[in-house]
C-alpha cells in the first residue's frame, strides 16, 4: 500500500467515523406519540416509586392512554433540571411548588395550565397561591409533608418526657435528653436538613412575613432579628448529638429509630422511611415550639410536590389530560395507599385510611395560617445552593462568629440578587 493510499484511506476512515455522529445530531428524532404521555420522575426511592407506578396504572386503566415514566435519581434530577427543561423534557415532570416553580415560570420554561385548574375541586386558596405565578397557574400539587419535631412515643413514655410548647420547655427537654444519653438528633452532611431548623426559629421569632421577605432578598441578613435567630439556635447546640456534619439524614433517622437520640426537627418522610413498618405507629411529633407569642405556632413548613408541563413538551394535550386526572382526590388516594409518609393536598381525598400520624399532619397544616415551603424552595436556587448551605455548615462548626457569618451572607446575597 502506498503512502498516498494510506493517507486517503485514513481520511475516508475519519469521515466515516465523524459523519454519522454529525448527521444524527441534526435529526429531529421521532415525533411524540399522542397516545403516550411520558413523565420525568425524580421519585427514585423505592416507596414513592412504587406508589407513583400505582397512580399511573390507575390512570392508564381509566383512560385509553399509556404512561411512560422515566425515573432519574432525585439529586441528579435536581442538578440537571435547567438543562433538562431546555433540552428534550418529558411531557410531564415532577417538581416543587413555590419559588422554585415560579423561577422557571418567570424564565418561560413552563406551560400555563390555568385552563386545567378551572375544573379542579378541593384545593385551598393557599395551595392555589403556591401553584401560581403572576396570576397564572403552572403547577398541580399532589402531596405535601410537614416539618415538625419528631420522636418515638415509647421513648417519651419511658423517660417521662413531655412535648414542648415553647422555647424554654424545648431547651429544658433537650437538656434532659442530653443528660440521659439520648441527645437531640442533628445532621447536615447533605447540606439541607439544618435549613428546617433555621426556617422554624426565624418564623417563630420574627414571623412568616419577615421570613418570606428575608428569603426574597428584601431584608438584610445583618439585621438584629436574623442574628437573634442564630443566637437562639446556639442555645440548642450543646444538646445535639456530636458530628452533625458527618451524618446524613438517613443515619440520623436510624439513630432516632434505634433510640440513640431523643428527637429531631425533620420532615415526615425522613423518620418515616427509616422506621421498619411495624414500628411506624411509634412515631409521633409536636409542632415546632413557640418563641414569640405574637406569632405563636401559626406557620407550618410543608413542602408541596407536584407536576408541571415544560414549554418544550411534545404532547401538551396528553400532558394536560394526565394533570387533570392527577389533580383529583381519587388520584391522590391511589398514591397515598402506597406511601404513608405524605399527606394529600386535596380536601376531597379519603382520610379514612390515614395513619394516626398522617391524620395529625393533615390537622397541623389545616390549622396553619401560613405555609412555607423550605429554605431552598423559598428563595433563589443559586442563593440557597451556593451561599446558604455553606453558611449553615459554617455556623454548625463554629457557632460563635455570628457577626462574621451574617456579614458574609449579606455580601454574597447582594452579589447574587443584583444579577
Amino acid at each position: 500500500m502506498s503512502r498516498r493510499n494510506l493517507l486517503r484511506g485514513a481520511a475516508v476512515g475519519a469521515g466515516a467515523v465523524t459523519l454519522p455522529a454529525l448527521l444524527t445530531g441534526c435529526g429531529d428524532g421521532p415525533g411524540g406519540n399522542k397516545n403516550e404521555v411520558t413523565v420525568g420522575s425524580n421519585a427514585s426511592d423505592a416507596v414513592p416509586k412504587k406508589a407513583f407506578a400505582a397512580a399511573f396504572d390507575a390512570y392508564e386503566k381509566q383512560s385509553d392512554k399509556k404512561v411512560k415514566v422515566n425515573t432519574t435519581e432525585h439529586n441528579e434530577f435536581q442538578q440537571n433540571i435547567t438543562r433538562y427543561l431546555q433540552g428534550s423534557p418529558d411531557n410531564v415532570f415532577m417538581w416543587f411548588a413555590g419559588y422554585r416553580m415560579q423561577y422557571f415560570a418567570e424564565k418561560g420554561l413552563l406551560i400555563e395550565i390555568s385552563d386545567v385548574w378551572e375544573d379542579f375541586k378541593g384545593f385551598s386558596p393557599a395551595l392555589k397561591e403556591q401553584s401560581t405565578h403572576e396570576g397564572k397557574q403552572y403547577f398541580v400539587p399532589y402531596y405535601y409533608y410537614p416539618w415538625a419535631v419528631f420522636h418515638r412515643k415509647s421513648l417519651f413514655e419511658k423517660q417521662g418526657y413531655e412535648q414542648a410548647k415553647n422555647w424554654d420547655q424545648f431547651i429544658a427537654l433537650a437538656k434532659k435528653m442530653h443528660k440521659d444519653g439520648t441527645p437531640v438528633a442533628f445532621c447536615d452532611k447533605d447540606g439541607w436538613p439544618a435549613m428546617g431548623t433555621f426556617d422554624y426559629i426565624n418564623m417563630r421569632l420574627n414571623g412568616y412575613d419577615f421570613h418570606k421577605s428575608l428569603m426574597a432578598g428584601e431584608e438584610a441578613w445583618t439585621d438584629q432579628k436574623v442574628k437573634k435567630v442564630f443566637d437562639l439556635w446556639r442555645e440548642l447546640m450543646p444538646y445535639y448529638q456530636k458530628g452533625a456534619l458527618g451524618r446524613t439524614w438517613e443515619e440520623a433517622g436510624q439513630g432516632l429509630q434505634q433510640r440513640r437520640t431523643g428527637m429531631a426537627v425533620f420532615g415526615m418522610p425522613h423518620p418515616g422511611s427509616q422506621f421498619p413498618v411495624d414500628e411506624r405507629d411509634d412515631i409521633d411529633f409536636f409542632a415546632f415550639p413557640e418563641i414569640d407569642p405574637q406569632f405563636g405556632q401559626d406557620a407550618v413548613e410543608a413542602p408541596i410536590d407536584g407536576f408541571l408541563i415544560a414549554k418544550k413538551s411534545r404532547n401538551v394535550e396528553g400532558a394536560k389530560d394526565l394533570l387533570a386526572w392527577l389533580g383529583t382526590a381519587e388520584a391522590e388516594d391511589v398514591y397515598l395507599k402506597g406511601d404513608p409518609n405524605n399527606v394529600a393536598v386535596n380536601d376531597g381525598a379519603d382520610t379514612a385510611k390515614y395513619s394516626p400520624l398522617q391524620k395529625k399532619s393533615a390537622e397541623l397544616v389545616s390549622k396553619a395560617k401560613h405555609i412555607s415551603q423550605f429554605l431552598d424552595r423559598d428563595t433563589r436556587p443559586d442563593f440557597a445552593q451556593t451561599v446558604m448551605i455553606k453558611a449553615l455548615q459554617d455556623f454548625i462548626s463554629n457557632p460563635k462568629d455570628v457577626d462574621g457569618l451574617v456579614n458574609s451572607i449579606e455580601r454574597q446575597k447582594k452579589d447574587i440578587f443584583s444579577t
Partner: protein
Amino acid sequence: MPQKTARRAGRRATARRFTRRDIAVLGVLLGIPVLLDIVIVWGPALASVGLSFTSWDGIGDIHWVGGDNYENLVEDYPAFWPAVRHNLLWIAFLGLVATPFGLFLAVLIDRGVRFSRFYQSVLYMPVVLSLAVVGFMAQLLLGTDQGVVNTILDNRNDPVDWLGDSSINLWMMMLAASWRHTGYVMILYLAGLKSVDPALKEAAAIDGANERQTFFRVTLPTLRPVNVIVGVITVIEALRAFDIVYAVNKGRNGLELLSVLITDNIIGEASRIGFGSAIAVFLLAVSLGFIVTFLVQELRGAREK
C-alpha cells in the same frame, strides 16, 4: 550561510513533489484534528474566559459585568480561598508524601523482598478503582455512626467525626487518594528501575559508593524520564481531584476544591455560569502555571543534553 540556502532549496524541492490532491488530503487530515482541537479544547477554554466577564443563568440573556465576578470571588466568596489552599495542600501532599512513598515501595520491591509479586499486586490493586469508589469506601470506613473505624474504636458516646470535622476530613481524603496514587507511582518507578543498567550500579560500587549514594547519585538521575512523568501525573492527579470529595460530602465543609466550586456554581439549579467560569479561569491559570514550568524545564533539560 551556505547550509541555510541548501536547506531552503531542499524544502522547495520537497514542496514540489506534492500534487494538489496530496495537499487536499493532507489539509483534511491535519484540518480535522486541528478543528477538533479548537472545538473541543480551545473553544470551551476561551468561551470560559469570555463568560467569566458576564452574568448568565443558562436560560436568559447574557449580561456583560466586567471584572465583577473576579472581585466577588476574591472578596465575598467564603469558599474560594479555602479551596485554593486545599488544592495546593493536595499537590504538596501527593508530591511530598504519596509520591516519595511510592518510590520507596518500588525500591523495596525492586530489591527483591520475599513475596514481592504479592506486594506488588496488592499495592497496585487500588489503582484500578475510580476515585469516586475510593470515596464511597472511605465513607464505609470512616462514617461517624456506622463506620468501621469508629466501630473498632468503640467510641459511640464520643465518636470521632472523620468526615464531618473540617480539621480532619481533608487529611483523611488525602490519605485515601494517596492509597491509590502510591500504587500508581510505584508501578511507574518499578518499570523505570528495571531498565536501569546494573553495570552503572556495579561501577558505583567499585568506586566505593555506599547504597545510599548509589541510589541518589546514580540510580535516581538515570530515572529522569520517569521522574518527569511521575511529576506530571502527580500534579494532574492533584488538580483533578474531585470525585472523591464530591462522593463524600459534595466537596463542602472542609473539602472545598476549585473543581468542586466550579461544579457547584455551574451545574444544577444555581447556574451562576459567569461566576463559575471565573473560578474555572483561575484553575486554568494555575494548571497552565504548572504545565508551562514543566515544559520550560523539560526543554531546557533536553537542550543541555
